[in-house]
């Protein structure tokens, strides 16, 4: 029986202006699984990811990590886990942003070690060891003393992946990790994610890269209008039996 890491049930999100972005979103991710969420702009995929990572409060439903409820709605009130549980929950996931959001005043090494040292309380020498190791794996060994502004977009995104991995999350979210990159730089980032997939890192990826999603995912979730329109293995979705809306959407990407 596979261990369920993330469980999202009946997630609803309504913005203050009344727009209902998520109507009834359900997703359960097992350990070692790679799930891609795709869909047109405004389908709610990024909002779903922001709710899952607690950047945006939910309006309804529940989100659990490792069987512990992180946030849930009950009789119209939204609850969050107590401080102690929340700390553990937050340590269990990481997020890679579309715009990297590296800390510009820190070097590459500091970006990767600072949270380890000051948040996770990892001894400094061990934090540096981990960082050096990660940079090595991601092909950035020679950049450890650079500031983010001196790196290409692809390099910055790889550093931000290293920063997330350094805290040893159980599941890693990606919010359109290649959307802010020049086309020739997306490859290096996708390669890293594929590498992680091959190491059985649990990942939930919001992306526009159809071909990549098809290659890397165990499961693809297709969203439209705040609900899941189709869900299945890449083969199930891309071949024949697929949902018409999905094929129409994919068709636009000339696949």
């Amino acid at each position, binding site marked *: 029986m596979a261990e369920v890491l993330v469980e999202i049930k009946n997630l609803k999100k309504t913005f203050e202006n009344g727009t209902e972005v998520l109507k009834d979103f359900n997703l359960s991710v097992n350990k070692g699984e790679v799930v891609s969420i795709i869909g047109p702009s405004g389908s709610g995929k990024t909002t779903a990811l922001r709710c899952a990572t607690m*950047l945006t409060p939910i309006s309804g439903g529940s989100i659990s990590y490792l069987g512990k409820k992180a946030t849930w709605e009950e009789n119209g009130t939204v609850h969050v886990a107590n401080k102690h549980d929340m700390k553990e929950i937050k340590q269990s996931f990481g997020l890679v942003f579309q715009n990297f959001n590296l800390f510009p005043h820190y070097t590459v090494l500091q970006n990767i070690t600072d949270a380890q040292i000051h948040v996770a309380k990892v001894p400094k020498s061990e934090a540096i060891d981990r960082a050096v190791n990660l940079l090595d794996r991601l092909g950035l060994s020679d950049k450890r003393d650079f500031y983010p502004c001196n790196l290409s977009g692809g390099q910055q995104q790889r550093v931000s992946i290293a920063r997330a991995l350094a805290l040893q999350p159980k599941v890693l979210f990606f919010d359109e990790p290649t959307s802010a990159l020049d086309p020739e730089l997306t490859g290096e980032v996708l390669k890293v994610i594929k590498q992680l997939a091959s190491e059985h890192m649990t990942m939930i990826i919001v992306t526009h890269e159809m071909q990549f999603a098809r290659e890397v995912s165990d499961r693809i979730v297709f969203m439209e209008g705040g609900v899941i329109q189709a869900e299945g293995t890449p083969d199930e979705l891309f071949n024949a039996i697929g949902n018409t809306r999905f094929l129409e959407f994919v068709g636009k990407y000339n696949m």
Partner: protein
Amino acid sequence: MSFGVILSQLGGGMVKSIEIFVLTLLFSLPLGLFVALGRMSKLKILSGIIKIYIAIMRGTPLMLQLIVVYFAPYYVFGINISSGFRFTAVIIAFSINYAAYFAEIFRAGIQSISIGQWEAAQILGYNKAQTFFKIILPQVIQRIIPPVTNETITLVKDTSLSFVLSIAEMFTIAKQIGAREASIIPLMIAGLFYFIFNYIVAFGMDRFEKKMSYFR
């Protein structure tokens, strides 16, 4: 009377001016930071009070504020004031006035930092204080150096306003020497001193700006 005597007397006044300048920066910069945070507070009462405070500080003459602070203990609380309070009053008045201006600069700086920086820190598990002081503030400081330099240079010249409380700073001394000598020269020399003082301040801030430009 020799030129040298005028210079040494003005020099003594300049030390006082520098003292007002340094102490004002020392108190008003941190105070301004907290005022800025209060101004951005979600607590409507707090941000409302801070707004009124900033409006008063920016909306009334600094010279008047100096007089009010010095005489407030007597006229508001009936406490007799001592002459020693003169200098303290100058520092209080300058600090609370400049804190209001610095607060608005800090606020602009803080609001110019992308929300993504806060979110990245939140995801990595930094608490609010760590996020602000370790991640946000260093970036804010880099961005606000030019407007802070402006205010700092204005402060150098504004120290001369403390003549209304007869603090023996450079401008007061220059006026007194001018009265004795029946001459405009001491005021001109004081002007030169202010210029040199500001030149050094501008040079220092420029160096600091360069030093802080290691990241973008």
